């Protein structure tokens, strides 16, 4: 049975003609569409009409365009099948509905197909959409038609930022890099000069092969420097610093010494340590210490200063480290007394009381001047950073019987002063007198009677 369904809205009328599924049942839904007609009373255009293809295309186009009006995001058109109906926005806020007629048989060129173009107002479009919505919601007409509302997927949305704008930062970066590269191309490559090594004159150098060129680093048994290299370096005299260095050194050596290998007897080394605690040099003190040196942590811990640094006047402290058979490491300052004994010069720490003091101001003045002149004539530049004060004892003839350092620095640096060489072991005499000798860091020598001027 042929039925007609009409969806009438103020400015759009949609009429469908078709066949019901069952001719006897009046409530049977319209299932086969024969003709669909869309008419806009306000527009002076003949009604649009077509079959199922036209209706499907109209529904799709209206749905998509309506969604585009709501969201402002257009779904890109399907290039393969543009559909019979298309909707586009007009410049003045209106809408363009274009309908291609169903291509006739034999016509190949789709451009040749006549196109109907209707300009719609927003109200007309809304009524068209509403008519379609009512049709979609109507279960009595074409129940197979349902709304397929879908959001536009992210992939289909064109970026709102144009390509040129997006590519600008990358292009700018690449151009900057190229420009920088070009500019740096003309900058000459800096030449690298190897640091010049000054040949160091050491006491042992006489035994070393003299053919070594100055640039060749001296080859040794694990360390490149010996404590004698630092004989010209100023000594650290501050007791606190020395204590700290001693403690640190003991800990470092104890930690680095694998105690599972015990030496058969004490290994004794003389160490030169910088102010930072670096072991600058070491030397064996007994023969077994030489043989067992590779078992001690010393070769690993020894800091090998580069040649230019070695000659620098870095303050150093000297220690004696003893690795005992029971796994103990004992570090003691390399005392002035030991230094004195090592150079076989007796340096009495305390001078006995003088039995008979020299009297007579003229004689005292003469002795004073004579001592001053003799010390000055033998004086070498000292590395001390504080005044070195000594008590020097002279006999009647003016020979030095003995001397004693008064302050700690004086004890450590006694070897640098001419006093040890000037001690006359044979000198004696009943009448003696003490003088105070001070070497100031500025290089000034001061000599005065210990008990003051008469």
């Amino acid at each position, binding site marked *: 049975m042929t039925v007609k369904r009409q969806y009438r809205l103020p400015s759009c009328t949609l009429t469908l003609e078709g066949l019901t599924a069952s001719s006897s049942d009046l409530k049977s839904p319209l299932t086969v569409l024969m003709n669909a007609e869309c008419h806009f009373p306000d527009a002076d255009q003949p009604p649009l009409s077509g079959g199922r293809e036209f209706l499907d295309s109209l529904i799709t186009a209206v749905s998509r365009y309506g969604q585009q009006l709501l969201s402002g995001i257009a779904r890109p058109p399907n290039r393969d099948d543009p559909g019979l109906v298309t909707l586009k926005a007009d410049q003045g806020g209106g809408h363009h509905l274009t309908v291609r007629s169903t291509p006739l048989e034999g016509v190949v060129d789709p451009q040749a197909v006549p196109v109907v173009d209707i300009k719609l107002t927003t109200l007309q479009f*809304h009524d068209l959409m509403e008519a379609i919505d*009512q049709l979609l919601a109507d279960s009595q007409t074409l129940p197979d038609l349902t709304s397929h509302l879908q959001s536009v997927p992210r992939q289909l949305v064109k970026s709102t930022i144009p390509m040129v704008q997006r590519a600008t930062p990358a292009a700018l970066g690449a151009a900057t890099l190229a420009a920088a590269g070009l500019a740096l191309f003309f900058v000459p490559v800096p030449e690298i000069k190897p640091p010049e090594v000054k040949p160091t004159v050491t006491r042992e150098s006489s035994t070393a092969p003299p053919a070594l060129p100055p640039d060749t680093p001296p080859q040794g048994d694990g360390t490149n420097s010996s404590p004698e290299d630092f004989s010209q370096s100023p000594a650290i005299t501050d007791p606190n610093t020395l204590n700290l260095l001693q403690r640190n050194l003991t800990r470092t050596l104890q930690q680095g010494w694998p105690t599972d290998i015990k030496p058969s007897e004490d290994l004794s080394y003389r160490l030169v340590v910088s102010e930072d605690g670096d072991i600058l040099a070491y030397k064996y003190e007994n023969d077994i210490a030489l043989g067992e040196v590779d078992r001690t942590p010393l070769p690993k811990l020894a800091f090998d200063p580069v040649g230019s640094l070695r000659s620098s006047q870095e303050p150093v402290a000297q220690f004696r480290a003893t690795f005992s058979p029971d796994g103990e490491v004992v570090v003691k300052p390399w005392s002035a007394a030991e230094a004195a004994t090592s150079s076989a010069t007796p340096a009495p720490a305390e001078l006995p009381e003088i039995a008979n003091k020299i009297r007579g101001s003229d004689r005292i003045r003469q002795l004073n001047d004579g001592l001053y002149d003799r010390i000055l004539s033998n004086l070498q530049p000292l590395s001390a950073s504080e005044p070195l004060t000594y008590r020097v004892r002279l006999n009647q003839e003016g020979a030095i019987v003995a001397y004693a350092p008064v302050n700690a620095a004086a004890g450590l640096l006694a070897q640098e002063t001419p006093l040890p060489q000037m001690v006359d072991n044979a000198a004696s005499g009943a009448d003696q007198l003490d003088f105070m000798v001070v070497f100031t860091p500025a290089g000034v020598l001061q000599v005065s009677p210990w008990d003051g001027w008469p």
Partner: protein
Amino acid sequence: MPVDSLTRSSPSPILAALPTPQISTPECPRRARIQIDLLLLATEALDLSSGETLLTLAHDLGLDSVVKGRVNLWLLRSTNPMRRYSQRRPMQLEEAKALVTLIGHQARRLTVLIRQLLMGYQQLTTQQLSPYHHLRLADYLSRFKSHFRARMNPRRAGVIVYDTDEKLDQLALELLGQLLLCSGVLGTQRLWVSLFDGEVQ
């Protein structure tokens, strides 16, 4: 479509008509929050009692549990990043569904007025006259402008775009057309789906 979970979590079957979109987060995208607030702003410009009507409508539709009152509604609308007192809180999809439903009902209630205004605007456009020649339309436009300027943060990039009267008028007319499209049988669904254009996977 996860229909099961939707019906279970929906406080009202009316929200079940709106499908949950396939987006990565359970929160409303930025553009959707702006659009919802602007459409509500347009209904307020059309009808001064719109705020009250919205609450009554929410009560009638059984959406009280989502839109819990005046303050809650204000908080929801303040998720619009263009607002002066924009809230950092997210807008849940459920809350967005409720607001979209309310917008659909409001638009349907105001259909006659919206049609009148659009009709008047079209007539004035064909005569090349300014929309201010239509008394009711001029009313709507000036009210929308004052609402917009009072509530939106003028330093926001999204608001700076509408710095002139003409641009705001254009926005108001655009929203009027969108409200009309929301008023139909499937208007609410169409609006809901359009909110996630360019967001779904």
